[in-house]
């Protein structure tokens, strides 16, 4: 049992990394990775929201949509749940940690539109996860996101001084770096 959860977690963090393998959550990945500190803040926020959203949407699906036979409304209701969770988090963060709030700036509301969040909710349904699995999967997805975000941010701090050719400066070199990282993550294929 515990072993299964571990496998699910490793699969979500490394083998099927949300960002580099599954292409989810790329916008914040590219947008909030210029500074290590910010990336760490964003990671924390996303981990919180992602795990919570994964569980909430599971509950909505299992106890509301399925019984009423309204599964076609899943996108609509998930996004509603997520938007509310995020908005609520945002308000709380703004009150309790203004710097984190300004630093995350546009990105806290954008966590709503971080497809990783809706993605994890939908994938939970697609893969027929139960409650615990949804929780673990959400957590794994978030940890995978956080891991690569933090690594990427540290790397971008280093790239700041690199003598990158003009046209590649900024987003382009970020994309290419992410590509090479994604190439490296292909090595995990088949691990679980």
């Amino acid at each position, binding site marked *: 049992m515990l072993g299964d959860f571990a496998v699910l977690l490793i699969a979500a963090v490394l083998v099927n990394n949300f960002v580099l393998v599954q292409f989810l959550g790329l916008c914040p990945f590219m947008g909030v990775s210029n500074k290590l500190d910010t990336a760490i803040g964003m990671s924390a926020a996303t981990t919180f929201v992602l795990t919570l959203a994964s569980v909430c949407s599971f509950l909505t699906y299992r106890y509301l949509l399925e019984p009423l036979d309204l599964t076609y409304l899943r996108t609509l209701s998930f996004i509603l749940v997520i938007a509310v969770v995020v908005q609520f988090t945002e308000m709380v963060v703004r009150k309790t940690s203004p710097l984190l709030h300004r630093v995350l700036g546009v990105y806290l509301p954008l966590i709503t539109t971080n497809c990783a969040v809706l993605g994890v909710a939908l994938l939970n349904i697609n893969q027929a996860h139960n409650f615990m699995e949804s929780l673990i999967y959400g957590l794994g997805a978030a940890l995978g996101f956080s891991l690569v975000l933090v690594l990427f941010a540290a790397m971008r701090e*280093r790239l*700041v*001084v690199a*003598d990158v050719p003009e046209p590649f400066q900024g987003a382009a070199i970020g994309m290419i770096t992410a590509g090479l990282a994604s190439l490296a993550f292909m090595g995990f294929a088949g691990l679980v």
Partner: protein
Amino acid sequence: MRQIFDIHGGIHPPERKDMSNPGWVRDCDMPSKLILPVTQHVGSPARPVVEVGDIVLGGQMIAEAQGPVSVPVHAPSSGTVTAIEARAVPHASGLTDTCIEISLDGRDEWVGFEGLDNWRDETKAALLERVRLAGIAGLGGAGFPTAIKLASDRDGGIHTLIINGTECEPYITADDTVMQCFAQQIVEGAEILSHMVGAETVLLAVEDNKPEAVDAMRQAAEALEMAEVVTFPTKYPSGGEKQLIEILLNAQVPSGGIPADIGVLCQNPSTAIAVRDALIDGKPVTHRITTVTGRSLKDPGNRRVMLGTPIKELLDTAGFNADSADRVIHGGPMMGFAVTDLDMPVVKITNCVLAPTRTEIPPPQPQQACIRCGMCAEACPASLLPQQLYWYARAKDQEQLERHNLMDCIECGACAYVCPSHIPLVQYYRSAKGSLRETAKEKVRSDNSRSRFEARQERLEREAAEREAMRAARKAAAEARAQAGDDPVQAAIERAKAKKAQQEAEQ
């Protein structure tokens, strides 16, 4: 034998010390004029106390210390003050600074000195004052006012005095020479110094590549019981005081601290002699022993030089061939700076003037990108990561520079020496350190401005409120008078007061 310890890193550049023939000193010819900068030390400039046209004697104070961290300047010979103006001074910047120019009369007349017969009977304060008045600033290269150093008393006091005869830089043999020729004076000076700070141990530290100096010091040290000569393997930069302390005592000066924090005082042999001369003979610092060396010279060697002698004249006495050199270095090849104007004078910190040929010290190679090979980190005596410091210096990332302890870099140049990419690393660090210091200063400044600005805003508001209150009061008084009641003025004032109090409360 005392146990010695190793330091991290270090390098072994070719020494080339034989060239200047250690152990022999000659007097430098008397120059026609002297140029004496008012700042030859770390700290605030000395203030000239002579005027153009004044006639001065050797040993006469011509500029007085100004502020606590400062030392006076004395005339090294007799002559006339011919200018007090900005001249090129020995400084890495190559900039000019206030100097006093003295045209020598060649008679070399001196003021009389009054030594102390029994310095042991004096108070420490009196001794310190003498050291200060003698214009002594560290002669080992840093030029920090010695009196301040001797006065700084930390918890626990000073237990060990180290006389730093390491002289680990290539080429330089000034200290070697001083130790061979004036070993006895050094030990006397050490005795005085240890008396002043209350040290129980005196370590005379000499690198093992100076056997004659070791012998001379051993002999002289027999006169002082608490003194011991310690030798240790040659390696650059063992002579850095922090490194030396680790080698001798296996202790580290805390980051950002000074040796006194761990009960150690470190002085150059020449400084010790200067202290001795100041107390026993009453003589100020007016001359020093300087190594003049390099293949561009026909006759290199150690000279006893008057402070203020233009470097050009010093070089010329050693047979300088200007065509073969494309730089002249003040100090050693590792830490010295390139001289941009040969008219700049010899000062208290000038332990060496190096005039290499172009082939001897070739011009710097073009800089390549850092390949992060880590050789610099292997060489760094402070266990820093020079390649990261370099990276962040280029990025101007002050946060990371502080995190990577830039300020603990001693600018020894070991990293740049080994760097296969020929990166002028030390210049990056000096620049980054400069801007770090400046940022800190600006921070203080701007915090001050902010509070003053805000105080002023507050004051203006308060004044405006007061004016408003006054106006209201006058108006109320007028009204009251119009209504004609009893003692309307008093009532109006009461009302105004109440209003003002309320307004102040609101603020």
